[in-house]
């Protein structure tokens, strides 16, 4: 196996492959998928991943509810999605097969751990007959491999007890799949050596299991051929594999560095946002203070308190937490202090689907507070884009002294892609976007100099940010309405009307500070525009590419700024005969587009807890194009 090139069988070349690893929650499928992804990334493929796991930490073993899966799509060209249908399903037990077989198309391969197909396991999975013999897998290429027993045999030299030894079977599967797709093994073995440096037995067992999986493929003549997916032609540069949550965390660390402000994160653990808290907690040497608060409200309130003190205040959450934070976000709007809110959207309402993705918090983010309480809303479009979106959110928050909501989602949070690592010098200097007030800003009629906390910058309408500790600028803020300029409590009707309008104008005025939306319309004469926002970017790109490959024309634009909209959005949507808005909700952006621009936008809406597949969007585009064709006649 040292020489991964000289193969007994000639490798067949493929342009892209989708593999799904599925097993029990405790089977280590996320780890196997993650290692396979890293090997593929180092090999030079483009890739996209989709972890899919249950909300329960350990659902009953062997049941369909407890199945955890990881899908990876890798290719020799640039790709946008984790793939619609797996080409290969690795099923570690009957429940994994039961849960995922329906996603397989004829011709797909299934790699079964045949040791796990005993009567009891079949029963637990809800099978009344063994699917291997009842014709239900017809049309699929089924490979039965006794993974458990082969692993137990392989790891014997490590001295591991049988119960522990069995846990290495994910590495056996990884070795076998690596062999099938000509993946280099070295990165995985190096990782195992490092990860288990202090546990010789586990290190040895995993190494042996991984090699055994590879060697099984090589030796057992049950596979007709091996495959190869050549490296993709990615733009030159240094790459790393990054998930959306890691990118958000790194983005806010970067924002703190670029703004020369200490970062303060106030957060309460919630799926799928907790990893941002975990990641930021690792980087205290950047001066990042992470505060695991007693609840969601305390998390955002503490972040706001820190912002009052001159920190870059951040809070992270998901839907239920955003509900709870609404009042404090309203206070931030009234105090006009910078605050960054990460909402990693998940299926709702209520507890909903904690580990599944959805885009249904859009209207909540834009409108979900009492009173007239506008704030900027931005959404990353890929895992790597989460990094830049965090920086952009911090920029807007600092410059305009406003809370900003970032709408990521479960799909971006846990999905990963190769990410060109930016040079630090190329990132924006946020310290140039704001400054702390240091001197009085108003001369009273008697000639005395005073500080007016609500005397706005005439251009941005931002109020001065005077942090405690600054002599001479003592002032009081509060949630009660303030008088324009002086900032004292005011119940004056005319003043309230003015302040409501000023706060709205300030946020609306950000439109001059954000880029126009770019439209991808290669021929320039498409009649259909597909308008997406946030994480649907990949699926829409892939669908548009497929549609164009068949000779049809379609334009695509993806929104990153949801409030305010880019200045040219109205012109863009009015320029097309039809506008299709795919969303993982029941039509929230579509409602906004119709309300703002009086355009009869059409929706493609899915709320299954899963991201769009390419084919879903592609079919919707085709049916819209057909409708246009009919109208034309």
């Amino acid at each position, binding site marked *: 196996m040292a020489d991964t090139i000289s193969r007994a069988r000639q490798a067949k070349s493929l342009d892209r492959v989708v593999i799904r690893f599925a097993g029990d929650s405790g089977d280590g499928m996320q780890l196997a998928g993650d290692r396979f992804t890293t090997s593929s990334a180092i090999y030079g493929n483009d890739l996209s991943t989709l972890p899919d796991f249950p909300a329960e930490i350990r659902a009953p073993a062997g049941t369909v509810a407890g199945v955890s899966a990881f899908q990876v799509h890798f290719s020799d060209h640039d790709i946008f999605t984790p793939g619609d249908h797996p080409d290969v399903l690795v099923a570690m037990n009957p429940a994994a097969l039961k849960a995922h077989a329906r996603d397989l198309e004829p011709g797909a391969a299934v790699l079964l751990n045949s040791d796990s197909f005993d009567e009891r396991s079949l029963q637990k999975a809800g099978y009344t007959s063994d699917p291997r013999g009842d014709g239900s897998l017809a049309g699929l290429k089924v490979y039965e491999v006794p993974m458990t027993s082969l692993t137990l045999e392989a790891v014997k030299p490590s001295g591991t007890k049988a119960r522990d030894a069995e846990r290495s079977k994910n590495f056996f599967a990884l070795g076998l799949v690596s062999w099938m797709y000509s993946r280099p093994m070295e990165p995985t073995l190096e990782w195992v050596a490092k990860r288990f440096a202090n546990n010789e037995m586990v290190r040895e067992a995993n190494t042996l299991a991984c090699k055994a999986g590879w060697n099984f493929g090589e030796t057992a003549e049950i596979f007709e051929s091996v495959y190869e997916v050549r490296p993709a032609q990615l733009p030159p540069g240094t790459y790393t594999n990054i998930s959306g949550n890691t990118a958000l965390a790194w983005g806010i660390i970067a924002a703190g560095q670029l703004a020369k402000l200490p970062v303060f994160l106030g957060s309460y653990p919630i799926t799928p946002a907790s990893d941002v808290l975990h990641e930021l907690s690792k*980087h205290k040497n950047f001066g990042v203070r992470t505060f695991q608060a007693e609840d969601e409200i305390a998390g955002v309130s503490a972040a706001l308190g820190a912002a*009052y003190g*001159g920190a870059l205040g951040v809070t992270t959450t998901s839907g239920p937490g955003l509900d709870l934070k609404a009042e404090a976000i309203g206070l931030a709007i009234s105090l006009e202090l910078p605050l960054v809110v990460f909402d990693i959207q998940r299926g709702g309402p209520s507890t909903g689907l904690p580990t599944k993705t959805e885009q249904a918090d859009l209207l909540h983010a834009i409108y979900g507070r009492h009173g007239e309480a506008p704030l900027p809303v931005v959404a990353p479009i890929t895992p790597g884009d989460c990094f830049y979106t965090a920086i952009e959110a911090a920029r807007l928050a600092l410059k305009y002294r406003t809370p900003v909501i970032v709408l990521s989602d479960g799909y971006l949070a846990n999905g990963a892609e190769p990410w060109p690592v930016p040079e630090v010098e190329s990132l924006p200097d946020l310290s140039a976007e704001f400054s702390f007030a240091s001197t009085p800003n108003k001369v009273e009629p008697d000639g005395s100099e005073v500080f007016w906390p609500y005397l706005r910058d005439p251009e941005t309408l931002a109020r001065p940010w005077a942090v*405690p500790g600054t002599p001479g600028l003592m002032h009081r803020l509060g949630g009660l309405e303030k008088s324009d300029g002086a900032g004292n409590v005011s119940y004056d009707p005319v003043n309230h009307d003015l302040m409501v309008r000023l706060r709205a104008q300030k946020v609306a005025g950000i439109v001059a500070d954000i880029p126009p939306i770019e439209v991808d319309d290669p021929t320039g004469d498409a009649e259909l525009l597909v308008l997406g926002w946030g994480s649907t970017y990949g699926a829409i790109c892939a669908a548009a590419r497929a549609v164009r490959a068949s000779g049809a024309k379609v334009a695509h634009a993806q929104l990153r700024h949801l409030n305010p909209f880019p200045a040219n959005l109205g012109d863009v949507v009015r320029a097309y005969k039809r506008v299709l808005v795919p969303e993982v909700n029941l039509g929230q952006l579509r409602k906004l587009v119709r309300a703002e621009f009086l355009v009869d936008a059409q929706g493609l809406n899915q709320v299954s807890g899963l991201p769009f597949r390419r084919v879903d969007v592609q079919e919707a585009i085709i049916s819209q194009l057909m409708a246009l064709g009919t109208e034309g006649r």
Partner: protein
Amino acid sequence: MTDLATPVTTRKDWSSDQEVRWCPGCGDYSILTAVQLLMPELGAKREDTVFVSGIGCSSRFPYYMNTYGVHSIHGRAPALATGLAVARPDLHVWVITGDGDALSIGGNHLLHALRRNVNLTIILFNNQIYGLTKGQYSPTSEPGKVTKSTPLGSLDHPYNPVSLALGAEASFVARTHDLDRKHMMETFRRAYEHRGAALVEVYQNCNVFNDGAFDAITSKDNRPSMLIPLEHGKPVRFGANGEKGVVIDGHGSAVIVDVDQVGEDNLLVHDETVGDPTLAFSLSRLSEGPNSPTPIGVFRDVERPDYGTLVQSQLVDAAARKGPGDLGALLRSGTTWTVA
């Protein structure tokens, strides 16, 4: 902040230009006066002082102080103040709150600020009623209280704020009342000087919705027989002629006795610094409400590292161990590969 000399200020320097708008006769006035008179004595700097409040009558307090201040949202003052105090350990952060704000809607945050020992001076105005919403019962109202929302009497069992704070292992807990400026100022001073979370319960009269709630213990005539002064290192003793005292009984409970009967030497000698909060807690249980002899003064004052300092030291340690943050290195800290 560069001026290291103790600033010389007067009450006027600490008063904002805003008209004070509590009801005439409200106990809040005397608390405000006590704080404004105390600040010059403390040698505090206005720019390094922040008053954070929630919602309620008492929470208007920051508007009247010529310092930095935030009038935040209902119940969340301890949470907002925690973020500020942790981000800025150089500031002195006060929390002004009431019985509804601190113990009802914001009960959770108060407990956590106390247990974490965040460096906050918390003044809890307890008037046993909801004033700003015009007279509903509060979590400290006595059982059976008839209010607009409890025409047949309240069924709620009340909190004892001092017991609650001691239960959360607050490192400083005290009680005072709005009719004794000297005692208030001395108690606030002690709280101010305590590093960590300090909670002071102030019995405060709401002359509109709950007038006279504390008369039984705080009126001039009643004080000697109804207030039990807690003084560190001294026997716990009260009464016009010191005829009453407190001992610890066989079950560890504090009980009131006649000094004649037990002997002076057997009285409990108050020790604020006992690490275990049990003794202070038993003192807090001497009275169920403000109508029987009630201890006032400092129940507990123990040293414990404050949260903001601990957070800061983790940052310093991490920087010493890993070196100061290097963004370029962070972005390359995972597995990387180069495409030529």
